[in-house]
């Protein structure tokens, strides 16, 4: 049985931990709201961009001069995995899930004889993957200390991917990120960026409208595709940011609850020990008096 003093300090320490976790939960909740709004705001652009890319790619489909961003290099040798994680931990399994998914994907591709390169966005992913796959990793990108994700941040990632593609360093690019499903659920998603997956077969009444292009399709595509890539990455980054705050909120809620349980148990032990002490002292007094 620990002494009363030890119990008292223990209770005080758990209480202050609980204060921290509940504050973190509150912060995560408000950041989550902001991140969700931002993700919401980016959606109209992404939707319209998709529509335009679908219309354009339908009209250049099959043409051998279609840009690389759309059809890839025609090879399937070097794969680039872009792992999107958070810069901070304490968010449950949020970062570990991405790390594991990336590791498994890399192992699977290598078992098939492909070369794998990994680009990490976010500090935690880099730290996780560095242990095992450091030889395949490119310089990571991190937005630590940034208040708000901007579109230009996503453009930076997109530019690097485009540059690597046109230099012939990669053939396929896949994005691995946490999709925001609901406040408490994130889903690890692998999204192929290059070559662009064929657009879902929508009713041709909408997309089938024959567009005129000015200038020609290929010139537009050459400018549109990097933008489409950037917005794809931007949406993923925002989803991941929203997911991160959701995961942290859930993790901190759990931690706060656990701390509460612990305080209750410790307080009970403390009271029991105190009472036992009092009883023992009484017995000592009484038996002392009787002995006289």
């Amino acid at each position, binding site marked *: 049985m620990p002494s009363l003093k030890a119990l008292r300090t223990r209770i005080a320490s758990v209480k202050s931990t609980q204060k921290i976790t509940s504050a973190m939960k509150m912060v995560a909740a408000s950041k989550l709201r902001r991140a969700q709004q931002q993700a919401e705001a980016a959606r109209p652009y992404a939707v319209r961009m998709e529509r335009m890319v679908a219309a354009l790619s339908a009209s250049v489909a099959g043409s051998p001069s279609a840009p690389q961003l759309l059809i890839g290099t025609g090879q399937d040798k070097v794969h680039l995995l872009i792992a999107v994680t958070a810069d901070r931990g304490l968010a449950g399994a949020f970062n570990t899930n991405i790390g594991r998914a990336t590791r498994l994907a890399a192992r699977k591709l290598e078992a098939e004889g492909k070369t794998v390169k990994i680009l990490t966005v976010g500090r935690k992913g880099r730290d996780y993957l560095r242990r095992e796959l450091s030889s395949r990793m490119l310089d990571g990108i991190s937005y630590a200390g940034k208040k708000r994700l901007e579109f230009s941040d996503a453009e930076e990632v997109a530019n690097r991917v485009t540059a690597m593609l046109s230099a012939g360093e990669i053939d396929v690019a896949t994005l691995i990120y946490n999709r925001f499903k609901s406040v408490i659920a994130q889903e690890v998603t692998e999204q192929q960026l290059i070559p662009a997956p064929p657009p879902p077969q929508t009713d041709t009444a909408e997309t089938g409208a024959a567009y005129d292009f000015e*200038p020609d399709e290929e010139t537009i595509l050459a400018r549109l595709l990097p933008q489409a890539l950037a917005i794809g990455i931007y949406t993923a980054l925002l989803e991941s940011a929203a997911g991160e705050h959701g995961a942290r909120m859930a993790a901190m809620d759990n931690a706060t609850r656990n701390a509460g349980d612990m305080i209750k148990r410790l307080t009970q032990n403390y009271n029991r020990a105190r009472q036992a002490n009092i009883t023992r002292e009484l017995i000592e007094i009484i038996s002392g008096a009787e002995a006289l």
Partner: protein
Amino acid sequence: MALSLEIVSPEKLLLSRAVDMVVIPAAEGDMGVLEGHSPMIVTLRGGTIAIYEGDRVADQIFVSGGFAEVTTERCTVLATEVLPIADVNRAEGEKRLAAAEAAYDAASKEGTEAEDAALVAIQAARAMVEATAG
């Protein structure tokens, strides 16, 4: 009031309303869009979008480049940077113009692709300066 105009940037949906006519700065010259225009996809150069209600210009919005999708009933503008004309900063435009011209000089050694990109940037910056001149 029949053409529905949308101006969207990656950060938000900036404008979505019905207008009579809109003039967009397409890559190969300004283009007026009315209801019933044949479907088109065009790239935009840096310039000013003029929104017409009736015969007068109701609004002017500066874009630094982007894309527009025109169908018979709507016109969607996708732009990275969108500013109401009143918020366009001349000093900022001049600064960018200088930067873009420097980039062009550097790019002329490198090759056509970088040169083209720099030319687009110069054009957008010049449009920004001109937009403030009124």
